[in-house]
């Protein structure tokens, strides 16, 4: 990463909606900023006054524990005030619309809305309806930018760089926002990305995102520097795609045996929560190559960076 250029760039975006909408330089600014916040999270007193007097609202339309906790801690460590709002999203329920909810929250004179929603594009719609910053904490199958940022941050801290790395994303690509954000982010930082899934879980036209596509796990693991293993959710569409969970594990589960055939220092990532024995065996999840818990730790630094940057959008960033 070009640290010397990163600190000269002015962050201009009020929102973080997805990595599709960011340039390589902007992604690097976030990762660079996260590096300095990482140091804060290791201090005895884990708090800086960077967002003192600012208010962050976690607006969650979908249940989430880890992402919400991570955002909440990130905001608190920046000395922001935080409130959490949980809403049930439904087209049938004659509740308040997303836009009305956003405007009402904004009327409370807050600064940043962190939104998690089961509909793709909900953060985009919210962002153009409010003046506050909007940070996407995961929307439908669309994007989960902070997850991909923390994956890249973790990978970079393990292997020193992203450019030129071979990264394979394995699992239900079709219904994964983590996959999409990872693909945008990693390809922008010039990693070589492969996606691997059963044919029915490979979405239409995914190769146009600049990735290799395979349904053969061995091919996806061969010579790869890192794997990002997705949580398999056996729901409506995924159920059709696979006969049994055991069969999925046999064909696509990451096991110690399979890992032995890979590069020795292969980095194993997972966005959590893990289904042990479905997409990954316990010995891999808890093994030497796994960085799963580091990802969780790094998530706070990355989210601190994102909150900090959007709150100071269009102001000169002094790193």
């Amino acid at each position, binding site marked *: 990463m070009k640290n010397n250029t990163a600190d000269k760039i002015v962050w201009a975006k009020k929102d973080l909606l997805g990595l599709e909408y960011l340039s390589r330089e902007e992604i690097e600014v976030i990762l660079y900023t996260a590096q300095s916040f990482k140091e804060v999270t290791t201090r005895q007193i884990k708090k800086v006054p960077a967002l003192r007097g600012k208010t962050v609202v976690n607006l969650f339309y979908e249940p989430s524990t880890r992402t919400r906790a991570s955002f909440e801690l990130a905001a608190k460590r920046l000395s922001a005030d935080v409130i959490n709002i949980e809403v049930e999203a439904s*087209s049938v329920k004659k509740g308040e619309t997303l836009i009305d909810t956003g405007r009402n929250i904004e009327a409370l004179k807050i600064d940043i809305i962190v939104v998690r929603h089961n509909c793709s594009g909900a953060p985009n719609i919210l962002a153009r309806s409010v003046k506050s910053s909007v940070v996407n904490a995961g929307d439908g199958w669309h994007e989960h930018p902070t997850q991909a940022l923390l994956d890249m941050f973790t990978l970079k801290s393990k292997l020193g760089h992203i450019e030129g790395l071979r990264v394979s994303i394995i699992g239900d690509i079709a219904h994964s926002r983590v996959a999409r954000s990872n693909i945008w982010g990693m390809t922008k930082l010039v990693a070589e990305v492969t996606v691997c899934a059963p044919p029915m879980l490979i979405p239409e036209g995914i190769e146009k995102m600049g990735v290799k596509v395979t349904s053969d796990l061995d091919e996806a693991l061969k010579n790869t520097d890192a794997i990002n293993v997705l949580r398999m959710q056996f729901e409506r569409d995924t159920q059709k795609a696979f006969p049994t969970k055991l069969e999925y594990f046999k064909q696509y589960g990451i096991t110690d045996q399979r890992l032995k055939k890979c590069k020795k220092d292969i980095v194993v990532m997972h966005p959590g929560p893990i289904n042990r024995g479905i997409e990954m065996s316990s010995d891999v999840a808890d093994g030497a190559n796994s960085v799963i818990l580091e990802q969780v730790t790094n998530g706070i630094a990355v989210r601190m960076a994102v909150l900090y940057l959007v709150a100071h959008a269009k102001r000169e960033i002094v790193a």
Partner: protein
Amino acid sequence: MKYLIKNGRVIDPASKIDDMIDIIIADGKIVEIGKDLNLKSSETIDAKGKIVAPGFVDMHTHLREPGREDKETIKSGSRAAIRGGFTSVVCMPNTEPPIDNSGVVKLVKDIIKKDALCNVFVVGAITQVRAGKRLTNISQMKKEGIIAVSDDGSCIEDKSLMLGALKDCKKDAILLIDHCEDIRISSGGVMNKSFISTKMGLRGMPKEAEYIMVKRDIDLAEKASSRIHIAHVSCKESVELIRKAKRDNVEVTAETAPHYFALTEECCVTYDTNTKMNPPLRTKEDVEFIKKALADGTIDAIATDHAPHTDSEKDVEFDFAPFGIIGLETALSLSVMELIDKKVLSWPDLISRMSTNPAKILGIDRGNLKKGSTADIVIIDPLKEYIYNKDSVESKSKNSPFINWKLKGKLCDVFVRGKVVMRDESIVVGSS
């Protein structure tokens, strides 16, 4: 009242006229058409530099009355029709209650008689409550005045029921208009299935959902020796199937809507719910096929699929928004810009797709400028450019992706049954 329309370029594909001639209107009829006409006791309308054509016929309109008068009424919808040059519109039966029996047909006809500012023709449902389970009493509804049947918005899944419906329509000599969608394939999709839907994380509706049903309908119509009309054709494969069926002498006709040749799926990327329609916006390649099909006559008609929805229904998550956009007021301009200016259609061809052909398919005595015909006439300024702004929209609903677009080609004057309903771009009947 008598009118003399002078100095215009008169285009009437039905009589193969494209000439600088004059028209005299009296007692609701065209009484004279020819060169250098004069009439003392009439109002003269100078159509210099303008095109004079039979009023447009929209085969596919949702007027929402009865039941959803918050979206549109027969009055507001017919005002929008006039603004767009449609002197006749055909209203679809997916109202609340649906137009699925002669009682509702009569109710709607009564509202039309009272409120409509243009000709409004009624379509009845094919199946009771549009549920795709049992046929409606088509012949009784026909006696009450419906001119076609359709379950538009839904597609009859049951093939034997569909075959039965086609046979009934043959017996009753009435047109069946089908919305072709295999809902098992479209399965809750909200836009075209492609790289774009993948990157947006939206559930896709693949083209198969449309053309597999087009194929089925053609086969069943052939089996029933019946006519069939395919609504809102949006993709290449449907075009190819219809083209082949026509060659094989199956009695199939088809329409498309302006958004299927003016927009592509790329327009969806901002999650603007005014780009959400069913069938969905497709790819550039599909747009090219739709244009070719309009040029070679595979697609007979341009219909709007005018589908009003309120702002509060549309200002929601993309997944939750209803399908459809309003289209009556923009159809001509989009056709001028995409079809005339891009040399896809000549003016006479465009008039035939918007007036002559739909009138012929529906079997209504409209869409021509023959002496003695009902004087439904439009006068168009083909070069006039304007900004289509929200305040100017006549429809009760404003759900259009073309708001704030610079458009070209505008209606100046409109006659319905010999009466001036729009004069110099101002609607002069009914109160808004």
